């Protein structure tokens, strides 16, 4: 495969897409939102438990391509313990990175694996979908945890 492809499907992305982390419903979530990419049918639901403006727990469910699954998995693994302000800042940087290739700062850890996405304009949406779902979940006022 070409360098571009190997940039897109880095080992860490393939790994997270095959065995996604935090791939479950969070029973005591107080924020939740769905994301949907009608173009390819990717669907993701993001669950978050936020206390004192800090992300305590994060998980997701859904179906989608390797990029969107890995993006959700790495996102949930990267943001635990971050404040809402830090999450916003990482989202902004991540957004710039997947559209231009400019990497997020080192605190972003594995997020940098998605820098190669910018060479595949059709796939930017896949990489950003779980983040949009998360941001819209966090924007909603917290709901009491449901267990239904």
């Amino acid at each position, binding site marked *: 495969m*070409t360098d571009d*492809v190997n940039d897109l*499907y880095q080992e860490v992305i393939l790994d997270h897409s*095959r065995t996604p982390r935090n791939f479950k419903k969070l029973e005591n979530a107080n924020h939740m939102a769905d994301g949907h990419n009608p173009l390819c*049918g990717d669907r993701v639901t993001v669950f978050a438990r936020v206390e004192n403006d800090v992300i305590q727990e994060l998980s997701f469910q859904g179906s*989608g391509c*390797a990029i969107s699954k890995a993006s959700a998995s790495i996102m949930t693994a990267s943001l635990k313990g971050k404040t809402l302000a830090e999450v916003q800042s990482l989202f902004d940087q991540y957004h710039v990175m997947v559209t231009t290739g400019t990497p997020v700062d080192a605190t972003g850890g594995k997020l940098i694996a998605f820098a190669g996405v910018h060479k595949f304009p059709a796939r930017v949406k896949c990489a950003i979908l779980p983040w949009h779902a998360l941001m819209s979940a966090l924007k909603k006022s917290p709901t009491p945890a449901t267990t239904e």
Partner: protein
Amino acid sequence: MVNPAFHCHGCHGEGLMREDFPILNQSIHGYPLVYLDNAATSQKPRAVLDATRNYYERNNANVHRGIHELSNRATAAYENGRERVASFFNARSSREIIFTRGTTEALNLVAHSWGRANLKAGDIILLTEMEHHSNLVPWQLVARETGAELRFIPVTGDEGLLDLSAIDSLLAAPVKLLGMTHISNSLGTINPVAELCQKARRQGVVTVVDGAQSAGHLPVDLQEIGCDFYAFSGHKICGPTGIGGLYARAEIMEQMAPYHGGGEMIQDVEFTHSTYKEPPHKFEAGTPNIAGVVGLHAAMDYLDCIGREKVFCHDQELALYAYELLTRLKGVRLFGPQKGRAGLVSFHLNEIHAHDMVTLADQKGVALRGGHHCNQPLMKKLGVDSTSRASFYFYNSFAEVDRLAEVIREIQKFFGCAAA
């Protein structure tokens, strides 16, 4: 079903007429382009490009307005195009042909002009579960407006045939309209439209056939099919984008109200009301896509020069060959009938999402489509969120199908699937 008379003579697995398609002769990401996304849009031969160019260079003017020479030529070209479409589909008269932007606009025209005037609460619009969104959403809109109800002829599952076991009761009153695709763009199924139209007609049910995938891909005789409406797109049959049409049986077209209002479609305009031209002109408001019609005319001539039986037979052989090769791969689930299919294959790979599949195939020069193919409800029913699709036209070759299979194997390997 497929007419057994279309026996293939003379296609020996080579792509036909490839030299007429400049676009096919290029590399994509360092590999020869293998264009297998023909169900989305076909490529255009030089004859079509030249015709459009010649029209703009020599004859361009507005139609039906001027009395100068160029306008006369443009009008003649436009109306000759209408004659050509009528003969291409064996309509009784060119007066039964309305030019539209394509299938989608044609189907919306039917839903809007015929549907709103003829449907009421309690009526049933019968569609199939394999309709493209463009033969579904317009009916949803009309149903909401009129109170009519939507019902569906079921699809049998992965095999992708219409389940016609209960068709007689499904077609019983108060069904007013039967809408169905001739060929499914996501399954490759060829539906028995003539048989269904005949049944519908006996019950007084009006019929709409979505011909987006059948026009230009097999011989279509509208008098034989016996439908009231047939919609098609020029861009899928070697013609330009932005042109297509609607066949409407003369008797039904005459009773229909206009679709869009504006210039070209009127006879007399007062401040508070107007009278309209005779059909089909009353359905064509505004300056039409004249160059598009010229290109479409050239495309139809071109296709008939090859012969649509031959095109059909060639595409079908490629699809059967692809089906055969793909069944041999592990972890591949194929959709649509094995026999009597049109020139496309739709498949799902274990553990590899169609989106990843299509990105990686593209990196090898192979253009596929991945997604729900504007058939979301059908995909849901089949239990997949998307499929990958390879769709063929006469210029594709067996070697390209071999390449497809090879690339799929490489992609499986890349994703570490045991299957490879």
